[in-house]
């Protein structure tokens, strides 16, 4: 049995079709990533899985149960870290943890062991008396994750848990997530960081309410038909301007001192010519997940505009 799944899940808000029929199933010990541009429907899908709202059509299952059914035990096995501010701002770090410990009726000893460990890993221990509202954005996220992990749920839903979290803390949060996944927890994570998407076992790429591609991140990047190159030589700022004018360029972004460009299939020669005029050349590199995202998403928008 899958730890959680969506079956043809759709959800409208009035005339707006936020989620348009998505299906995926995640096994225990699996880490599933949901990525997509703002407004793709990720948060709505997570809200339905968490039992916060009814699907317009289709259904969700948490350990085989409907989280909104009468008498369900799904919620006991479910941990949710919402994207928005969800803790009590006037309570301290320690008081928020205590509150969640009480909600899930943890025994005192269990509670103390888990809190000590979570505060240690997240390095929040020295801020235990600070009000949640006075935490920096990243520290707040860490606290919210601790609160969602406190009852060690079997299914954990994380809606952009690392927004505003610094590179060191992001790695620490991921170590934490991996550890729980290794222990058999099934985790759904949505994230705007494509390096994080690359670390998931499987990823669903969402766009306008649909999953437009899914699979292991390495397989998805291998399937990319676009060329990805670094621009060697020339002046970066000047070249940035040149590349922005090239219709074959999906995206150009800095990679160290160089620029990295994603080029539509068949457009390589034209871009090579354009940069050569400014004393630079192209060197092919292996695509990463961010290149894939840029290619799949901007390719779509153009195709739709043309249609």
């Amino acid at each position: 049995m899958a730890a959680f799944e969506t079956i043809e899940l759709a959800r409208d808000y009035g005339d707006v079709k936020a989620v348009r029929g998505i299906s995926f199933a995640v096994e225990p010990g699996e880490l599933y990533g949901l990525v997509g541009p703002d407004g793709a429907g990720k948060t709505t899908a997570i809200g339905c899985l968490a039992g916060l709202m009814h699907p317009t059509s289709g259904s969700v299952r948490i350990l085989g149960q409907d989280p909104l059914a009468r008498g369900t035990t799904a919620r006991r096995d479910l941990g949710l870290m919402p994207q928005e501010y969800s803790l009590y701002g006037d309570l301290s770090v320690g008081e928020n943890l205590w509150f969640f410990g009480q909600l899930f009726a943890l025994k005192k000893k269990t509670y103390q062991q888990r809190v000590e460990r979570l505060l240690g890993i997240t390095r929040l221990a020295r801020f235990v008396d600070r009000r949640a509202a006075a935490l920096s954005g990243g520290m707040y996220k860490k606290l919210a994750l601790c609160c969602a992990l406190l009852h060690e749920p079997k299914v954990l839903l994380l809606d952009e848990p690392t927004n505003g979290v610094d590179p060191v803390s992001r790695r620490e949060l991921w170590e934490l997530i991996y550890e729980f996944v290794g222990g058999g927890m099934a985790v759904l994570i949505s994230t705007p960081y494509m390096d994080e998407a690359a670390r998931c076992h499987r990823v669903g790429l969402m766009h306008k309410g649909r999953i437009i591609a899914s699979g292991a991140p390495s397989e998805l990047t291998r399937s990319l038909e676009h060329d990805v190159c670094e621009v060697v030589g020339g002046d970066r700022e000047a070249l940035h301007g040149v590349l922005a004018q090239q219709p074959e360029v999906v995206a150009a972004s800095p990679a160290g001192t160089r620029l990295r460009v994603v080029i539509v299939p068949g457009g390589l020669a034209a871009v090579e010519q354009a940069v050569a005029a400014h004393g630079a050349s192209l060197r092919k590199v292996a695509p990463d997940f961010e290149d894939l995202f840029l290619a799949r998403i901007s390719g779509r928008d153009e195709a739709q505009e043309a249609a």
Partner: protein
Amino acid sequence: MTEHAIQVDKLSKHFGDFIAVRDVSFHVERGEIFGYLGANGAGKSTTIRMLCGLLTPSGGHATVAGHDVASSALSVKSSIGYMSQKFSLYLELEAEHNLEFFAGIYGLYGKRLRHAIDEVVERTGLTEHKHAITSALPGGIRQRLALACSLIHKPAIVFLDEPTAGVDPASRRDFWRLIRELAGQGTTVFVTTHYMDEAEYCARIGLMVDGVLVALDTPEALKRTWVPGEALSIEGRDLHKATSAARALQGVRAAELFGARLHVRYADGVPIDRRVLTAALCSAGAQVEGMEPTEASLEDVFLAVARTSVQNQESA
């Protein structure tokens, strides 16, 4: 008037016993994109709030656009734009009404107000979103609207506190195109971010650790100083299991995960033995599918600075 857009001398801020910012000194030149980086809670936002005249410093001095932040906070506020980390617009208003509100606050009215709004809407590419209710705008557009509100009075300096947090990759690129245009037109940009690829756009970068400014230089100089030596980028499976094993190898300075890849950096001048590395990674439970040399990035710098200071604390 001082020569620099921002001049900071031994600036400090205490909250009770907690020292959020300690003796920080730096300057920012006019028209420069200055990046202010650091871990969560390192004191970035506290510094910004002092420089914007929102918090009184506990010690030291700072001048922004020639005004002292402690004694002339009002003059500072009228010459800067500030985009806070927390989204701070009125969600139930139309995008344009938010702009009108902020224009009004800065004393614009009538024709000048209309002109200022038209110009900033054009500049930030918000024309088609002008009449949308703010709450209905996607995250990336909202951030652009927040930027537009901070630019409405044409400030000489803008402070952007994590302007792209949670914004998708395509929208982040749009946003940075705006920032670069802004700087190109002479506006000084003081920006914080946790996206190290964005930090590459900054002319200079200050790195904060626990309230102290521990590094201040151009991106290239920071890389030379903090992450010398050669590095390999390794592709494979379960590489996260092998970070400690890689760190324990002789001659290895750092081993960090970058997405699904593991980057292993050797000390300057140490010859790289790929066989020894592969063996160590495999015996730690990882599978190696390939490795290639990789250049230092600002993310390497950030991690090196943060890890060094953690080690210093532990050995102290």
